[in-house]
């Protein structure tokens, strides 16, 4: 005998938990042993709902006067009866069901190795190696002023721990929300993001020095914020099926909050340090210096502007 339909019990992550063929209408769903489809959910009545076939491949669902009633997701409004299609989820107690005909078409099968590059563990491993190499490179440069060269290598531990925590948190969120942790994909996004941040900061730092222009540092700050926003957006994409635009806005907001807070803290710290000589102290290797430099006379004569500034400050409280 051909089944007339299937009643599927669906998890929160929309995975099918069990599938029950239907051979005659009506079908009764409940916790009792006399139900056609038995649902082990303490919030479901012994006889909870009844399903009948309706026109156009749809099904009529009606509440059998249960205590908690039924609703059609995503709404949680209790209804006594409804007509549902093959993609509608009917909620009873804490369980969701779906009714589909045998003729329901399923999506094409996925090819076995079709995972996007960035979702592959090997891609994550590669990017992690890049991050570790960047950190080690920076630490090596910093050993120039160290007596005890070996202790500085240990400072890689907290950095890597921070990256690991970042990846783990995103994976955990993924797992909770979507059922899959996407660990390798989050790992790749995080490592690629941090590597891009490091490269961008170094680049703008060198450009600021090499061309002797300070606004390059502000540009670098903006670039970092943009990279971070994109990174958060990619993490969110792995977790949510919400519209891309919504996720992009979320990424930008998170980045603005974080970088705004960092900038605010910096300004507040410098304001609090009244004895601070606020200058750019960056010195790079000669091959990264692309300007010939001002004449000392011009530099010194620009001191007048400094005088005007401090004179104005002195006048305020004299």
């Amino acid at each position: 005998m051909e089944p007339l339909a299937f009643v599927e019990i669906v998890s929160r992550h929309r995975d099918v938990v069990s599938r029950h063929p239907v051979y005659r209408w009506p079908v009764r769903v409940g916790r009792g042993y006399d139900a056609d489809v038995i649902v082990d959910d303490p919030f479901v009545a012994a006889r909870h709902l009844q399903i009948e076939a309706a026109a156009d491949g749809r099904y009529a669902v009606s509440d059998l006067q249960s205590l908690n009633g039924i609703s059609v997701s995503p709404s949680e409004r209790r209804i006594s009866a409804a007509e549902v299609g093959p993609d509608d989820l009917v909620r009873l107690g804490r369980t969701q069901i779906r009714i589909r005909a045998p003729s329901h078409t399923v999506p094409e099968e996925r090819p076995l190795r079709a995972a996007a590059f960035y979702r592959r563990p090997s891609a994550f491993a590669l990017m992690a190696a890049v991050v570790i190499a960047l950190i080690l490179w920076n630490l090596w440069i910093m050993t120039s002023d160290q007596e005890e060269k070996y202790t500085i290598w240990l400072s890689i531990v907290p950095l890597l721990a921070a990256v690991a925590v970042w990846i783990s948190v995103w994976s955990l969120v993924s797992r909770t929300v979507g059922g899959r942790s996407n660990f390798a994909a989050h790992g790749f996004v995080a490592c690629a993001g941090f590597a891009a941040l490091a490269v961008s900061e170094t680049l703008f730092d060198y450009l600021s020095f090499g061309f002797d222009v300070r606004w390059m540092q502000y540009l670098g700050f903006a670039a970092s914020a943009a990279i971070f926003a994109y990174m958060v957006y990619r993490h969110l994409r792995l977790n949510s099926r919400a519209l891309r635009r919504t996720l992009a806005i979320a990424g930008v907001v998170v980045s603005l909050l974080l970088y705004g807070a960092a900038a605010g803290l910096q300004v507040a710290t410098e304001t609090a340090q009244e004895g601070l000589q606020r200058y750019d102290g960056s010195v790079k290797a000669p091959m990264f210096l692309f300007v010939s430099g001002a004449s000392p006379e011009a530099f010194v004569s620009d001191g007048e502007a400094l005088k005007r500034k401090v004179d104005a400050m002195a006048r305020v409280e004299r």
Partner: protein
Amino acid sequence: MRNRRVHALFALLASLGVSPAAAQEAQVSAQARSLYEQTRDSVAQIRVLLGSSDSHAATGTGFVVGAGGLILTNYHVVADKALEPNTYRLEFVLPDGRRGELGIVAVDVVHDLALVRGDIGGATPLSFRDSQPSKGDKGFSLGYPLNQGLTVVEGIYNGRSEEQYYERIHFTGAINPGMSGGPAVDVGGRGFGINVANHRRGQLVSFLVPAKFAQQLLSKPAAGRPGETDFRAEVGSQLRAHGAEIMGALLKAQLPVQTLGEFSLPGKSGEFMQCGAGTERDANKPYTVDHYRCYTWSSLYIDQRLYTGMVSFRHSILRSAELGALRFAYLQESRFAAGKYEAAFDRKHHTRYACRDGIVALKGTRAKMVMCVRAYRQFEGLYDVVVKIATVGDVGRALHSQLELEGVSFQSAMTYVGRYVEAIRWSR
């Protein structure tokens, strides 16, 4: 900006935790005893009192130098009263318990002297010697060390202190906190100096202001209106004169040049400038640094939070055969970006720094240069200027040079900075 080596310990300001005076000699000499008899009516303790309270913030010594209760002491003893007349009071206390209010008549911040007046009775003014004693002559310093009552300290006159910009007598004797402003007299009881400080790192190395400056202050008509209590304007004009004096001495002749490795650099400007060299050579470190440092020992005490009036510079030559370009640059950067923050900043005295940085072309090399300027809030026309230079030329060799000018006019500072930078030359 302050150099630990340069500032002598001002006796008055040291805390009471300072260890007591050197052991007294068992036998008080007859000379010392007769001095004590002579001076106990004319050498008073001077107390600085906070507002209407009776507890003293600081103490020093003063002695009668003229009719009408004219008393000489150090400027640094009465500085709080001179700058904040409404916050502080001054009073004298004699060994027999007599006390009374004091008012300031004149100050000389350059030589650290002040004239005050009070109703001290008919004490005989101390007379000064017309000539300096000879090196090795015995002398006595009088005062109230650490609140211990009028004390006579025996010591040796050792001529002029050789390092300080302004003339000071080097006196070998235990001058302790609280004795500041007391007289130093010869065996005949005639004054030749005024206790002012001792050397922080020495033992019994003490300094006196020569008596001639006291006489100059006495002969000068009192500055400002009679009855004036706020000496801020007067201190300001003396500071400006001091700044002009130092800068005048520095700018008088061409800036002398000193060779340090491959660099020709600004060097010692004259006898008034003290210079020294040092080095950082540590077998564990992949680089060496040679330092050359000069300064004028000309800092003036203005109040507890402000010493000013010194010019100093330091050249450091960094060398490394081992470090590559990136690592050597990091070494430079970590040193060049350090020392931006001065924790001892006092907003009462200084504005914030305004700074400028950029690449400049020096003779034979390029450099990152920084210039920071700040103004004095209470003393118009005075500035602190800091210049920092780090050359960006050869991998493995660099000059870091830092110049600090305190309490000088902006114009003179810029002229000097211009010459300073001009004098730097890199020859391969």
